[in-house]
């Protein structure tokens, strides 16, 4: 059995984009940290990509943090993209019928490439 990924969220700025990397299992115990990191990244005014490739599990409070980020970004007309969404996250988004609401991209580069 694979070792569990430790929970964590890292926000960095790459060029003119904010990237929020989340890993582990997002649940009620720390989803507020994820929410804070996303809102902080958006506060910088940059386009924001949330990298979910290392997320093994996400509950409704984690999804709520993503939804809040999306709503905040829309208000400010900031691009907000979910990047490299892992299968467990995708399954929950589908279950919540939110998979069509978010912009999904394979990578941050793809997400912000000129259309």
């Amino acid at each position: 059995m694979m070792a569990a990924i430790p929970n964590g969220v890292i926000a960095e700025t790459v060029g003119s984009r904010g990237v929020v990397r989340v890993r582990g299992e997002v649940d009620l115990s720390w989803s507020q940290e994820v929410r804070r990191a996303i809102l902080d990244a958006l506060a910088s005014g940059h386009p924001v990509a949330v990298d979910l490739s290392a997320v093994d599990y996400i509950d409704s409070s984690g999804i709520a943090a993503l939804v809040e980020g999306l709503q905040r970004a829309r208000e400010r007309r900031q691009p907000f993209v979910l990047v490299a969404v892992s299968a467990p996250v995708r399954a929950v988004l589908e279950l919540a019928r939110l998979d069509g609401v978010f912009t999904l991209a394979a990578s941050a580069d793809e997400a912000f490439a000129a259309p």
Partner: protein
Amino acid sequence: MSMSPASLPSPVRGSGSLAFLAELSQALALSLDLDVTLQQTVDRVLDFMQAEAASLFLVDEGSGAPAIECRICAGPIDVRGLRLAPGQGVVGRAVAENRIQIVADAASDPRVWRDVDRSGGFVTRSLACAPLATAAGPIGALEIINRLDGQPFCSDDGELLGVIAAPAALAINNARMAGRLLEQQRLKREFELARRLQRSLLPRRRRGGYPVVAVNRPAHEMSGDFYDHFELAGGRIGFVAGDVSGKGMDAALLMVRAASLLRWIGKEGASPATWLERANDELCAGPRDGRFVCALVGWCDPATMQVVFAAAGFPPVLVEREGRFDEYRAGGPPLGIAAGAAFDETRLDLGTGTLFAFSDGATDVRDHGGAPLGVAGVRELLARGGGRAPAARLRTLLAALRRRGLVDDTTLLAVAPPGAQAGGMVLERWITADAANLRALRGALRTALDAIGVDAALCERLVLAVDEACANIIRHGYGGDPRGGIGLKVRRDGALLVIELADQAPCADPADLRPRPLGECRQGGFGLALIDAVVDDWRLENGPGGRGNRLILEKRIAGHRQAEENE
């Protein structure tokens, strides 16, 4: 002070009668061997009453002509075994009239029957006889002959004899009742032994990946019904359900014969039709007493869930697939009626379905309107337990039939994929209401669900549902107070997974728990919607006194990967 070695009654006639009676009563009441005690009683009466001879007669309760027989005597001649007709002689008259008889002068009294004297050279001069009276009438008589002092017996002698006869009658009566009780107990023990022997013929329930389960309920002590299951070549499992006509011991003995025959022919690997043909010919060759045997025989291959069966006078078989029932009428006459009969074979792919067979004890049960349930009625009762393990469904069906009143032996048998038979606790955990505990709980649930063969995608969704439910309890139930507790129980009942989450938080109003529509882009409040999307059914039960909630989630897991059962 000197003590006499045995405090025997006074040898002086009439004196010390109270002490004598007290001692006699006690000896009779405490008697372990009534024959010995009665002999001692008669000896003492002889001594106490100062008579030449004394004898005790008992009414013969056995078959044949009614008679009063001398069972115990004391004196110069042995008249034991002497039988008198009712009313014959003084003894017969004492019994017939239930009154003390006194004969002062035997030579001139017409009541006296003198054959005894003639044969033994003994001369009866005077006699007294008291009936052994019980609530149900006299059971015999106590007689004394000839006073030692040569005087005739007087009415005082008769009364005294009557008083002595009373405890003797009581003791004999008690002993007889005890004997009858003992006989009843012996019969009951033998019956119980036969019943246990018969039940021991039924195979034990097999667990862990076994496709056949059956229950049997005799209407009386002994059963004419039976079932069997056993391994056959190639991993197949043979099964038998049988019903011998009639009830009671005769039917039970035929059941033993039929069950053995069907087992051994089946084990030889015969096809179901041939299996019945051979059993029929064998039963027809045996003693014919008008009894016959209805039977269903077949086998199931657990690897392919292909089932083949044949029936002889047995009610139709029901096959349930996804809640729909098909009826299979398998032809063929009951066994033991006509040699050379042929039987049809039915072959079907059971898949994830369940085959139900039942003896006519089930279909003959009356519904509330008094009409027999029939196959349709049994099917209706079965449909109510859909989704549960076959063993639980058979038990529920049997309970429903018993509530309506079983009048005949009843056997129920189910064949289903091995995975469907499993049941029991999958996981039991208790955590404090702290979100930090959720990750470990999810891990334990994943492991447990994987172990029972729930596929990975469904497993993740169920983990999510439980996690969301716990999060709701932590946030809304306990308001974030981590001192509260959450109990998780995951049970499997056949194809149904039942998840129960219990807390001690203030009761939630079930009306407040309405899942919000999914797909709405909102920040929260869709935990319950996720739960609703994952499970088939959920409900909230409130605890007593405004505290405590039980959230029950149910999910059918049939059709998903069936793991090897390691029960």
